[in-house]
């Protein structure tokens, strides 16, 4: 190894570029291989893989409106992904993002229909703040149990998902049951609490911009602030953080609460932007998507955006694929599974870093 000064600028540039470039090549190859495996499955079931994939692409990104819908679906995924990134960066095992989404969603809806007379900006801000608070509170008990008695948060957060789902289901079935809806749900939120739409004919709304803003905030927080630095060091090596004199327990608490708050905002955003009321079962596992997205994004807040859009595109495209070619949308689940496998197994990356080194 030599010091930086003895190297040419070009060499350093190449060095700096190789990391990201390698990642892009890696992910493109993983995607192609996953699509190929999915194609074989489609072909085996007697359908035309090319037609299916064409429909998948058209449904996801083929028209401006499809793009808008994909971005709309990505909104909650980005926030859930950020929640997972913050938790896992701190080595807090928050598997309760789904439940925190539910609590956040309900809190946002409650403020949305319950508080009157606020201007739109303030009303939305208040609803999102309530959502963040609800998500954070829901994550507080598991981390408190962990810090107080060493109860594994990986188990408690998981169990808290069910409590959150059933608790909100109870709330909309009895105390908050709305008389003017078919599905169990709350009353509709007021217009002043609704995210403005961004594109005519699509549900894409200002919530997407809020999500993007939070990506920047989280990136800044993790990499540019004292507390973020502490969180990451605790996550990378807890003994090192303790040895350095960092507040390890406080960091674990903060990491979990921030993660819960982001998940809560995610739940709030989907209510204020898409459903406009709290309904049971509104989330098709977005909390779990968030965990997988954080893995794809390798815990980088910025990378959560492309990973989420990709995931949303698969979800939206699969519906079109099913409608046009009768290839069931669940096939996309198989493709996602292959991708996850290839990403976590680091199939190509290790190969390339070996080959390119010499």
């Amino acid at each position, binding site marked *: *190894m*030599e*010091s*930086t000064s003895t*190297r040419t600028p070009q060499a*350093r540039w190449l*060095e700096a570029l190789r990391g990201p470039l390698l990642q892009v090549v890696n992910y493109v190859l993983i995607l192609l291989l996953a699509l190929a495996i999915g194609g074989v499955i489609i072909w085996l079931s007697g359908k035309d893989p090319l037609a299916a994939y064409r429909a998948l692409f058209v449904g996801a990104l083929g028209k401006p409106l499809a793009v808008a819908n994909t971005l709309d679906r990505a909104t909650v995924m980005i926030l859930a992904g950020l929640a997972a990134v913050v938790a896992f960066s701190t080595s807090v095992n928050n598997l309760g993002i789904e439940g925190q989404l539910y609590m956040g969603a309900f809190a946002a809806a409650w403020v949305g229909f319950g508080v009157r007379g606020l201007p739109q900006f303030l009303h939305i801000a208040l609803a999102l703040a309530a959502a963040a608070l609800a998500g954070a509170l829901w994550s507080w008990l598991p981390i408190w149990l962990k810090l107080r008695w060493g109860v594994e948060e990986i188990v408690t957060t998981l169990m808290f998902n069910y409590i959150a789902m059933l608790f909100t289901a109870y709330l909309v079935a009895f105390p908050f049951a709305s008389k003017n809806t078919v599905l169990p749900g709350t009353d509709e939120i007021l217009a002043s609490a609704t995210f403005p739409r961004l594109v005519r004919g699509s549900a894409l709304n200002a919530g997407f911009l809020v999500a993007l803003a939070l990506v920047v905030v989280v990136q800044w927080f993790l990499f*540019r*602030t*004292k*507390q973020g*630095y502490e969180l*990451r*060091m605790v996550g*990378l*090596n807890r*003994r*090192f*953080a*303790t*040895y*350095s*004199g*960092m507040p390890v327990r406080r960091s674990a608490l903060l990491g979990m609460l921030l993660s819960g708050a982001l998940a809560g905002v995610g739940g709030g955003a989907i209510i204020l932007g898409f459903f406009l009321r709290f309904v049971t079962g509104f989330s098709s596992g977005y909390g779990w998507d968030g965990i997988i997205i954080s893995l794809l994004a390798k815990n980088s807040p910025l990378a959560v955006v492309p990973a989420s859009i990709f995931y949303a595109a698969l979800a939206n495209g699969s519906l079109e694929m099913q409608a046009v070619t009768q290839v069931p949308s669940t096939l996309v689940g198989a493709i996602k599974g292959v991708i996850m496998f290839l990403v976590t197994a680091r199939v190509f990356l290790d190969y390339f870093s070996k080959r390119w*080194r*010499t």
Partner: protein
Amino acid sequence: MSEAVAMQGIVKRYPGVLANDHVDLTVEAGEIRAIVGENGAGKSTLMKILYGLELPDEGTIRIQGQQVRIRNARDAIAHGVGMVHQHFKLVPSFTVAQNVVLGLEPHNGIVLDQAGTRAQVAQISERYGLKVDPDRRIMDASVGEQQRAEILRALYRKADVLILDEPTAVLTDSETDELFAILKRLAQAGLTILFISHKLREVLAVSDNTTVMRAGKVMGTVRTASTSARELAEMMVGRSTLEDRARQRAPHIGEPVLEVQDLSVHDSRGILAVRSASFQVREGEVLGVAGVEGNGQVELAEAITGLRPSASGRILLQGRDIRNQPVRTIRECGVAHIPADRNDMGVALDAQVWENLACTHYYERDYSGRMGLALDRIRSMAGERIAGFDVRTPSLTCPARNLSGGNLQKLVVARELGDQRARLVVASQPTRGIDVAGSEAIRGMLLDYAAQGAGVLLLSADLDEVLEVSDRVVVMYAGNVIDVGKVDASTREKVGHAMTGGAASAEVPEA
């Protein structure tokens, strides 16, 4: 004698490093050749090329006079080259015999020939005097036995060139002696032995010739019988400063910095590991703590640095009791800590170099506001530390994992001493696993720092190091701290006496 291995003009480049720079190496059949050099001198790379684990960028290899291309380990084995790795590659649940034949099992049709396996392994082990029990599972075998199984595996594959990568690093003294006897028998039987080491005493004990490498080049090959440890060491590091500098200084010893009084500390199992220990470290003084590991040294260091609660007693730092204070408070009072567990405590391997340097200062007003970090100032501080302590790193932003062991430890030392604030330095095993030059540099840094008026508490299992660096020595035995006094000609003997609890006074080993 005939030429067994000839490597000529071997060049191997890694990004930013020339690991092998036109290396020539010729070894005769039946020879024991030691290859010595510091970590990173290129000796492991050279052996990996010979065994096909790395491909050379340039150069040729001849084995028994035949020019060969070794593209992988399979090629190497086919040409009669075997390797015993530093970390054994054995299946724990298999027996010794099963491990030896693994991949080349004797068989009748598709049925494994168990009896034949045992017989063949027994035959080879008898021929070369490699004592093993072929039926013992690897997980039940001692380290020496595992190593013999590795050697047997190479012999079973008809190796006549045997490479051993730091074979003694994991062995006890008696196991080492046994290994050397085996190596000599193998050489007498005509095998060629290449072994990598940086323990010069062992090299002198067993090899016929010694090749010294430095910075990717061969510095020379000498007949072992006509050289000395000192000559080899000078060839390795390229300067003759070893061992001299330490005793030249005349320390100005001042007031006590650290006073430990009746300190008792429990270990993780709740057993008393430090028992009413009392001692002092004074300004400008290096106090060495010698002793067999596991006699309470870890617990003592952790109690002083705030990482482990202590049961009773006092820890006075310049008169202020810091016992059971938070780590940050203790650090701010002026205690630096170089932990024994470098990779798991001293650094976060996956964090970047600057992040590893910032961890004790990032929160201070010079380096951050209420929330945001002053990255420019932190990075320039990190750059200064790296330059000041000669930490060789490709950049400030690469993961610490990319640094060699010696540079990683220099990084720790740079962080702990670089701010000049520490009044007391607690250094645990500061040079363990680090090459000669790196160890020298780190000891020098500690001595220089003490010379500026700080106290140094040096806990080390390496008695040579303790005697070289310390002004005064205490020994830890069964949790007790026994004062041995100022370092002089009789210290070694006194330490040996105290280390064994005073029981084995008649047979103090010359360490």
